[in-house]
């Protein structure tokens, strides 16, 4: 970062970068909560949603945070205290880790590793441990069932997500997310370079399966068996209240942001604008905004599906993952590989 005529020492850069990641996690999560969970759901259900807190209910999120913070922090008597306290932290931490390799601009990335996408997917599966810890340690039958269901479901949907990404990696030729963004920016679609070459054009099957798998990773309807409110009351989150529940709440929406960011980076061309060159310094400012709008688009689809569909039973859910999604993604990989070699 020597361009700004002042030399920022290395520790300065890493502080800036970690602040950037924190902002990257919390800002989209916050707007997603307001726009989708408060407003879009209400419009879907022909009501206006919160209108009292701030103009058009914009301060509702802070009101909610305030409410959660002043709630009593209960730990059930039979609970395994240490694991009970650790579970939400594990879930939220993994979401921060997923944001590390995601590029928001030429230099605005915490760490551009050669195996960026591999790191993101590996880390996102650690949250399963957090959910299992929460389910087990709450000493509550509903939580235990919720936790076990979550474990089964998240493992089953890890595979389709990874296989969906493999199609993109074959086409981009690199695992590094910056590389994938660059690849999508430079290639042409049959000679016409107007809007670059977002991989959704050829990898639409991959995007569909990725979104379905992301829906399952977020334990959202139609895959919200772990938090099936009509059966398990609140699944693994039943016994949590106050600040810990807030952590789970943030974790859930930050994870939605993370998967949306991954989807838009892999399939919609990431932070790059087609006609602006990649190394333009202004892209460090414009890039995050571009990626933010793409994330909002993807999250609209995620929440749109979440509030429309009923939920699947977990044996149907597993059957759907193993017997439908995985064959489709394998076929997609084969087709991509053949096309890659032939052309």
């Amino acid at each position, binding site marked *: 970062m020597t361009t700004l005529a002042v030399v920022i020492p290395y520790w300065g850069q890493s502080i800036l970068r970690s602040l950037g990641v924190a902002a990257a996690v919390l800002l989209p999560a916050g707007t997603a909560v307001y726009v989708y969970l408060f407003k*879009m759901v*209400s*419009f*879907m*259900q*022909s*009501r*206006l949603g919160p*209108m009292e807190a701030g103009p058009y209910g914009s301060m509702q999120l802070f009101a909610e945070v305030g409410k959660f913070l002043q709630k009593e922090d209960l730990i059930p008597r039979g609970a395994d205290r240490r694991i009970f306290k650790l579970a939400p932290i594990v879930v939220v931490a993994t979401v921060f880790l997923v944001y590390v390799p995601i590029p928001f601009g030429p230099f605005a990335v915490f760490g551009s590793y050669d195996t960026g996408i591999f790191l993101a997917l590996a880390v996102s599966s650690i949250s399963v441990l957090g959910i299992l810890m929460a389910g087990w340690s709450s000493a509550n039958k509903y939580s235990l069932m919720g936790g076990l269901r979550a474990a089964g479901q998240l493992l089953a949907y890890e595979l389709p997500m990874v296989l969906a990404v493999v199609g993109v990696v074959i086409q981009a030729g690199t695992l590094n997310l910056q590389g994938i963004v660059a690849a999508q920016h430079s290639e042409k679609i049959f000679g016409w370079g107007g809007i670059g070459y977002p991989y959704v054009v050829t990898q639409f099957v991959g995007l569909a399966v990725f979104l379905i798998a992301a829906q399952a990773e977020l334990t959202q309807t139609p895959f919200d068996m772990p938090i099936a409110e009509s059966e398990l009351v609140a699944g693994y989150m039943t016994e949590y209240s106050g600040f810990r529940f807030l952590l789970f709440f943030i974790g859930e929406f930050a994870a939605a942001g993370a998967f949306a960011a991954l989807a838009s980076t892999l399939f919609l061309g990431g932070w790059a604008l087609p006609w602006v060159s990649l190394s333009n310094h202004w892209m460090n400012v414009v890039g995050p905004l571009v990626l933010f709008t793409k994330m909002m688009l993807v999250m609209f689809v995620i929440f*749109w*599906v979440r*509030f*429309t*569909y009923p939920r699947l039973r977990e044996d149907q859910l597993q059957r*759907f993952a193993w017997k*439908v999604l995985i064959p489709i993604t394998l076929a997609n990989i084969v087709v991509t590989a053949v096309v890659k070699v032939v052309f």
Partner: protein
Amino acid sequence: MPKVPGLLKGLGVTFAAIVQTTKPKRLGGGAATVQYPHVKEAPPTRARGVIALREENCTVCMLCARSCPDWCIYIEGHKEKAPPRRAGGKPRTVSALDRFDIDYALCMYCGICVEVCPFDALFWSPEYEYSEPHIADLLHDKSKLGLWMETVPEAPELEVGADKKKK
């Protein structure tokens, strides 16, 4: 496995709902809900909100208290001399009302008292905003019931095929 149209139709329904709710009111859009403290929906004229008492009609016959299923009307009266109807006539003994309480904590708004009152002293009014922080305050005494009298609406005329004579 799933054929697509069913799932897409569902998405179409919810998207149409978003468009309908966000369309401004003058274009026929808007939510079905009303922002209560600022905008209040008027209940229909026959709504049974609260019972109003016209004290002068009441002759303490206690028919309402006797026919109330929940035993929530408490009446006490006394006899007194009233001026004769025609000049020079004998003073009439009339029973006057001392206490007429309705306990809205017990009342189930069935309307038997209003209907059974032979002297038309009790009326329904669609007023509904009289909740109280303390449940004891729900015991409305006769002065409060009198206050409700102005909120009693005119009886709505009946549907076209209705029988004209007032039952």
